[in-house]
């Protein structure tokens, strides 16, 4: 080491770097100190003087006309302060609210209920017990109507009419409506070219691949506390909001309260996974009740309400087709999706994208031509359609292409890996223009796939599988071995404001920092952590960029009065967008700091070089100023004419999305007698570009894989023919415990994003996107030598056993 690399007091550069705790450091999560001691501050912890509690009266029917509502018995209960119905909201035009998808959603049902557990009345009382007792006393007279639960029957000529409020509307938010239960048709790609590719294809496959209705099921359910100060005319709303600024803007537009008089605060959030992006009737009712009564009103969902009424995910029925040459080069992709949106289109996508980014469905492959059409339809089910730990409709798209690849491999008699290697977009093709309109920023897919094969001893696994199949045929084992391969490309970081907005607000994000005189700092961002560890990782980005320790930087999010405007956290957008703003804000600070340092050292700016935490005069390493010294000077010793202080703000509009990718391999053993699957091995290689905190990345991957495991192996929100929602409790809805959860092996490659200031791409959702395909492909692969093309999820015990039984494999 040269002398120049030593600090004057002898502290080594490595020690200074370690002290910085910047990018690349597995720094422990600063937020965990309060979480693991039970000292978090969640919405239900918010207790305001005089606060009342709201509870819903919900529909027992999937589809029924409301003939009358009698609230008199409920109102007579001591302690009940109000019972709101649609009749109370209608004069305020709040009985319906706009959705992010351009539809409207009933806040409280007016003439009809359209799904079981729909909100019908809101009882406000002095405590939760009184509210629940009184809710039972609200008498609603229903007339049952025919129920529609099968999306494939939504557009039949004699299907029940669901949405009477828009029955004459022939034009929806995304074009013409073909039927009274039709919401939109969204098309992308070249239809004629694609049809031509299929006409001359040597080999084609076609399969209906359904992705069942599931629910993000965060540990904390949705909740809000609204407090209207009638003297000041100010409304404060605490809530489980993944995007608090958008909630403030929407609240202002709906209520007419000026936006500066609305204070939206998202305190600690116990998991979101998309469930907390939308606006729910509970939020609106707590706000209206507080405005009417002039005191704070709290609403907290219970678990069954959460699973059955707020924001499901998926419910995509995808007919996928691939065209290929007989040696396995794919020549075209064609897909039609029937999207079940439930009773209202409350899909949480950027406004111009009714099917999200489903057109990422060409996946990681160089497919020359493609065409996709998505039809959204109404059914008597809860609204939603959120991105459950993924970018918008990306898990659906990735699942479709990854299942289709295996189906094609089987038809061609090729190994699934071989087919993938043959069709990957090659490293030199980036930036890559996909047939369906995206520009992939960077990637090295063959390297990742080959590393995964080596680490899992893929060839040996295939050899073992062959032996086990023979042993099974001889009656020596009752186990079927499956090897699931999945390769995925995510599209995250929405997004460029030119094509991504939420209700007209562009999807930029922001960071603001104030460096205090002692060199400690507070930074605020427009995103909102729900467990991702933002307080830790943003500080690391800022530490590296500015040169002060991450331990000296406090990160704050969620209070719209103090944080700069941002579009929130979902779709893995925090690092790609707000993380970029953090890096740029750090560079703005460093630029000003350099001027101050030059002034202090009496040299020109060009004579300075930056090293970890200080500026040094080139060639005179003993002449230096640390960032701490510069921060102090920023408040008392500045160059002539420079503003005092050391603060900066950055609003970042990303030039493109980022495209994380990964290669996953899952090995599964299925007991043919019971249908029970044991995950023997799961290897996950993720490439999320520059890695900010490897420990947090690993934790994110573990969490995402565990959710993917839940989805693939058991989760389902199912409606029976009568419109009754089944499985809406944790008894039936499969949330894996530590006992069921497999052991994860994680790995990585690093391919930085060329357009992101620090090259980071985002990682939180990748494991869900790739994981579901890997599990499902493993189950399907266990039967790949037999007469099975595709087995629908979830792969729970009895469904898997049914496949065994059909194939004559059961004992």
């Amino acid at each position: 080491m040269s002398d120049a690399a030593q600090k004057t007091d002898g502290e080594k550069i490595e020690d200074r770097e370690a002290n910085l705790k910047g990018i690349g450091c597995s720094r422990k999560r600063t937020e965990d100190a309060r979480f693991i001691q039970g000292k978090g501050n969640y919405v239900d912890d918010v207790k305001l003087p005089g606060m009342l509690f709201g509870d819903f009266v919900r529909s027992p029917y999937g589809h029924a006309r409301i003939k009358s509502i009698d609230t008199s018995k409920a109102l007579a209960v001591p302690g009940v302060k109000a019972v709101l119905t649609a009749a109370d909201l209608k004069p305020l035009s709040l009985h319906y609210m706009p959705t992010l998808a351009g539809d409207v959603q009933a806040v409280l049902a007016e003439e009809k209920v359209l799904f079981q557990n729909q909100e019908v009345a809101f009882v406000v009382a002095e405590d939760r017990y009184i509210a629940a007792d009184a809710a039972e006393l609200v008498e609603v007279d229903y007339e049952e109507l025919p129920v529609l639960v099968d999306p494939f029957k939504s557009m039949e000529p004699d299907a029940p009419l669901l949405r009477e409020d828009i029955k004459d509307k022939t034009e929806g938010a995304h074009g013409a409506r073909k039927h009274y239960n039709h919401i939109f048709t969204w098309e992308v790609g070249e239809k004629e070219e694609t049809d031509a590719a299929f006409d001359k294809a040597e080999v084609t496959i076609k399969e209906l691949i359904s992705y069942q209705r599931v629910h993000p099921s965060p540990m904390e359910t949705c909740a809000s506390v609204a407090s209207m100060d009638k003297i000041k005319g100010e409304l404060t709303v605490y809530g489980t909001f993944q995007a608090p600024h958008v909630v403030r803007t929407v609240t202002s537009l709906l209520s007419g309260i000026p936006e500066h008089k609305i204070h939206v605060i998202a305190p600690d959030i116990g998991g979101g996974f998309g469930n907390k992006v939308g606006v729910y009737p509970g939020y609106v009712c707590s706000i209206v009740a507080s405005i009417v009564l002039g005191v704070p009103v709290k609403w907290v969902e219970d678990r069954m309400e959460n699973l059955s009424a707020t924001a499901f995910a998926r419910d995509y029925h995808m007919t996928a087709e691939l065209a290929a040459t007989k040696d396995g080069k794919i020549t075209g992709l064609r897909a039609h999706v029937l999207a079940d949106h439930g009773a209202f289109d409350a899909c949480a996508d950027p406004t111009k994208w009714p099917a999200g980014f489903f057109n990422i469905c060409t996946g990681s492959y160089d497919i020359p031509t493609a065409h996709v059409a998505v039809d959204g339809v109404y059914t008597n089910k809860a609204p939603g359609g959120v991105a459950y730990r993924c970018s918008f409709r990306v898990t659906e798209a990735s699942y479709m292409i990854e299942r289709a690849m295996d189906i094609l491999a089987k038809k061609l008699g090729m190994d699934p890996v071989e087919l993938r290697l043959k069709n990957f977009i090659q490293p030199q093709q980036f930036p890559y223009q996909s047939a369906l309109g995206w520009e992939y920023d960077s990637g090295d897919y063959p390297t990742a796939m080959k590393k995964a094969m080596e680490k899992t001893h893929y060839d040996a696994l295939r050899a073992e599988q062959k032996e086990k199949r023979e042993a099974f045929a001889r009656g020596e084992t009752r186990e079927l071995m499956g090897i699931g391969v999945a390769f995925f490309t995510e599209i995250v970081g929405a997004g460029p404001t030119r094509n991504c907005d939420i209700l007209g607000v562009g999807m930029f994000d922001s960071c603001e920092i104030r460096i205090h005189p002692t060199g400690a700092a507070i930074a605020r961002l427009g995103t909102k952590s729900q467990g991702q560890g933002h307080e830790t990782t943003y500080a690391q980005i800022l530490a590296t960029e500015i040169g002060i320790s991450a331990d000296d930087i406090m990160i704050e999010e969620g209070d719209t009065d103090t944080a700069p405007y941002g579009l929130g956290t979902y779709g893995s957008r925090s690092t790609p967008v707000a993380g970029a703003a953090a890096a740029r804000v750090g560079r703005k600070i460093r630029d000003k700091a350099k001027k101050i340092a030059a002034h202090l050292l009496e040299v020109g700016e060009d004579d300075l070089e930056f090293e970890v935490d200080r500026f040094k005069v080139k060639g005179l390493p003993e002449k230096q100023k640390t960032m701490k010294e510069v921060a102090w000077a920023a408040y008392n010793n500045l160059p002539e004419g420079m503003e005092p202080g050391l603060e900066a703000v950055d609003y970042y509009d990303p030039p493109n999305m980022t495209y994380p990718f990964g290669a996953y391999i899952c090995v599964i053993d299925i007991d043919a007698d019971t249908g029970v699957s044991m995950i023997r091995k799961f290897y996950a290689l993720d490439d999320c570009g520059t890695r900010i905190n490897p420990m947090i990345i690993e934790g994110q991957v573990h969490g995402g894989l565990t959710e993917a495991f839940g989805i693939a192996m058991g989760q389902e929100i199912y409606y029976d023919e009568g419109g009754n929602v089944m499985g809406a409790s944790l008894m039936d809805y499969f949330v894996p415990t530590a006992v069921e959860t497999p052991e994860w092996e994680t790995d990585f490659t690093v391919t930085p994003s060329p357009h992101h200031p620090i090259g980071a791409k985002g990682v939180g959702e990748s494991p869900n996107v790739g994981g579901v395909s890997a599990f499902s492909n493993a189950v399907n692969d266990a039967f790949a030598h037999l007469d099975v093309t595709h087995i629908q999820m979830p792969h729970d015990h009895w469904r898997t056993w049914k496949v065994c039984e059909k194939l004559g494999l059961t004992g």
Partner: protein
Amino acid sequence: MIPGSFSYHSPATVEEAVGLLAELGDDARPLAGGHSLLPMMKLRLAPLEHLVDLRKIDALKGIKDEGGTLVIGAMTTQAELLASDVIAGQCPIIQETAALIADPQVRYVGTLGGNVANGDPANDMPGLMQCLDASYQLTGKGGSREVKARDFYEGAFFTALQEGEILTAVKVPVPPAGHGYAYEKLKRKIGDYATAAAAVVLTLAGGSCKSASIALTNVGETPLYAAEASAALVGSSLDKAAVDQAVSLAGAITAPASAGRGPTHYRTKMAGVMLRRAIQRAHERAAG
């Protein structure tokens, strides 16, 4: 998930408890561990006005070996069963079963008496008690009586318990030394009820089956004692033909509902698979 209002009573003796139940009538329910009753109350499926908590009654606790019969107080928790040397030595299948109930937190609070008295066919202990030919001591204002587990269950949540009676003890005949046993349970995850489960206790003599007892869990309106299936094993060498016969006879008495755990057909088949595995493990464990 918020229960309606109710009054809470905490008697110190069995006499006091049955007195309260007699006095309060239909509107009262005894509370044991509460892991079945409290969720029902929170869902407002079990409206009641009075809860008579049995937890402070010392006489309902404890495990005693009374010369060939284990007498287990109704308020003995699953965790206490798992920690008991007496149970481990005399009737280990009780521990094998208890360990498959829910999760450790539930087992610290959930009781044997509550598990068997509630009449829920999804509970594990009722089937096991039928397999072991246990008796329940039922105490009311007029005194105590004993009813065999095999006669106790009348339908889902309907039992031989009369109004005003509580189940105070479970009496288990100690199986012969050298008996083989197994409880096999298929479930979706920790904390779940059985998709199907089977309890088997058998003895061997000179390589053939001397006695056998089989019961099934959660594949009917009540736990099912499979008398004919048990008989089919006796005298056999537990060869494939005898086991096939027992599985077939046991399957014939099942009538599971189609539910999230699977359709009727599957659950019947799984009762057979669990039984087959339980017989095999019991056979391996049996002496002689």
